[in-house]
């Protein structure tokens, strides 16, 4: 339905450069312009509203959170945050999540960086097969790996430890990072490799000295995205972790809203605390993220 807006406009579909800017805006009729902005404002409101509502609710005391009366702000208080931060295990869960996500991120990136590079640069036998394997691992339902991994962890005595979650998350992170990093390495001109090899660098030196420094933004984004995936994972965390002091956020926060007597006021406060730092960095990183993802995807 939003697409019906398109006919109202002319020109300037391409090249959003400053030069064409003025010209095409002049060409658009006022009505079309109004429709365009109205649609975008509407969509933006829908996108932002649930987040804003949670933020607003987190400042309300319990009786107003759990009331059917509509109000944006009522008796604003920081009580919910105080409770979540000082009276619950929330800080511990946060720490657990940070540790697990960091470990997953570092190990995942370290292992996949060279693979991404090899996939991007060398046409070695097995390359296409490996790319296929990465695609296929995207299809693995959590259902098929979770039980065997659970049993292996139980055999190794790792249930209810951070290590078990890091290992489980690596099954997601390693293929994903390799895939993403290949996309970033693809966008670095190969002439640089050639120049380095003329200067006498072997493939490993080229990778380490020339390509890695150039790929730093891409690596940062991949790292961050891996971090977020581990940060928000629910299924493994719900299955592997059993005691309160080892919970991750994704599982711990479920404790605020049991079937009966849910404490939504604390949940909303916790949600804000979880989202704000992650969201800020994400918004910074997303521009690079997408180019890498689609590049990796289309150049299989």
């Amino acid at each position, binding site marked *: 339905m939003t697409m019906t807006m398109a006919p109202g406009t002319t020109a300037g*579909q391409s090249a959003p450069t400053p030069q064409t800017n003025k010209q095409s805006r002049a060409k658009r009729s006022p009505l079309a312009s109004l429709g365009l902005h109205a649609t975008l404002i509407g969509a933006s409101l829908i996108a932002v509203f649930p987040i804003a*509502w949670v933020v607003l609710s987190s400042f309300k005391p319990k009786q107003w959170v759990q009331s059917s009366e509509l109000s944006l702000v009522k008796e604003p208080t920081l009580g919910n945050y105080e409770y979540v931060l000082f009276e619950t295990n929330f800080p511990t869960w946060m720490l657990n999540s940070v540790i697990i996500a960091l470990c997953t991120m570092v190990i995942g990136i370290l292992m996949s960086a060279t693979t991404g590079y090899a996939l991007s640069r060398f*046409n070695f036998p097995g390359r296409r097969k490996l790319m296929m394997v990465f695609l296929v691992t995207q299809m693995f339902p959590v259902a098929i790996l979770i039980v065997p991994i659970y049993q*292996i962890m139980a055999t190794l005595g790792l249930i209810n430890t951070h290590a078990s979650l890091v290992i489980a998350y690596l099954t997601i992170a390693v293929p994903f990072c390799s895939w993403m990093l290949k996309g970033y390495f693809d966008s670095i001109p*190969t002439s640089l490799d050639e120049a380095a090899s003329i200067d006498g660098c072997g493939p490993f030196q080229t990778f380490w000295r020339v390509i890695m420094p150039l790929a730093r933004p891409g690596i940062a984004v991949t790292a961050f995205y891996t971090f977020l995936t581990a940060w928000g994972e629910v299924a493994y965390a719900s299955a592997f972790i059993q005691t309160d002091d080892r919970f991750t956020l994704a599982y711990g926060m479920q404790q605020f809203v049991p079937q009966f007597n849910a404490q939504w006021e604390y*949940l909303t406060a916790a949600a804000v605390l979880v989202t704000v730092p992650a969201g800020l960095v994400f918004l910074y990183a997303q521009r690079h993220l997408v180019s890498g993802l689609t590049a990796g995807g*289309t150049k299989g």
Partner: protein
Amino acid sequence: MSTDTATPARTSPPPRETRRPGRLRRSWDKHWYAWVMVAPVVLVLGVLIFYPLGRGILLSFTNLTEANQLAEICSKSITGSEVCKPNPNAWEIVGVDNYVNLLTGKVGEFWRQFGVTLIWTVTCVVFHYGLGLGLAVLLNRPMRGRGLYRMLLILPWAVPAFVSAFAWRFMFNEQFGLINSLFESVGLDRVEWFADWKTALLTAIIANIWLGVPFMMVTLLGGMQTIPGEQYEAAEIDGATPWQRFVNITLPGLRSVSMTVLLLGFIWTFNMFPIIFLVTGGEPAGQTEILVTGAFRSAFEGIRNYSLSSTYGVLILSILLVFSVFYRRALRKQGEVW
């Protein structure tokens, strides 16, 4: 994009100790560094993914549950020493019984969950793609406030999925949720969202659409910016209407990106665990479970039925594999090299 230009080698097997030194030897000399570079990942894939995968497939042919997993039953005698007897009810290999039971509906509700999964996946992907494309088209032009719109529209992606799930469950709360309050204030009846599977599934779908559109939008926007502007100019000179330009230039230009994100979107949504798990939790009475959450519940709730959950897993994986094989074949027929 690969620098290595003259490498015809495709079919040569991995470099084992070679009996025919000629070709393999040359292949190893030429590619050893590439193989060394991918070795850690291949190792991890083998140990962490394919070994458990193999175990999972084997498990699906047994009747292993939490209750019968011990091979021996040990009990303490009065003197404190342990006496162990073989477990008479220990798990055993049962062939394809699990598959038969699951597919004929004797155990669990496979077909119901399969139906729900299909509704869920198709609806979500259609809306993700449609809305994402629409918004990308709107954003792909110079205008005031473009950067701001883009940032606001991306926000749902920045929120961790489990947080979004909680936020929507909160808004759909039957007693004090925002949606019901809004309904009431405009004179509509409040809806008991989680009393009926259709409305319950609707809440989960809405939540998932909300959080999935930004990814499609940004990806398609990226794709649109690679379409050369001259094509639009030429079309304009030929008198093409905006709609014709959209159909004949934008859509074909987005083909390869679209095909990738549609396949990924389908797979990811099919396996989307947290939204169903946290928004509806299967309410009412497990009727909104999709296959993945159904498998999880059979494995980790009640008496843990590990073998049944593995059977689910194998079936889900098979469905997705078959789907993507057909998908790729359909693309190939239309001349897509991917």
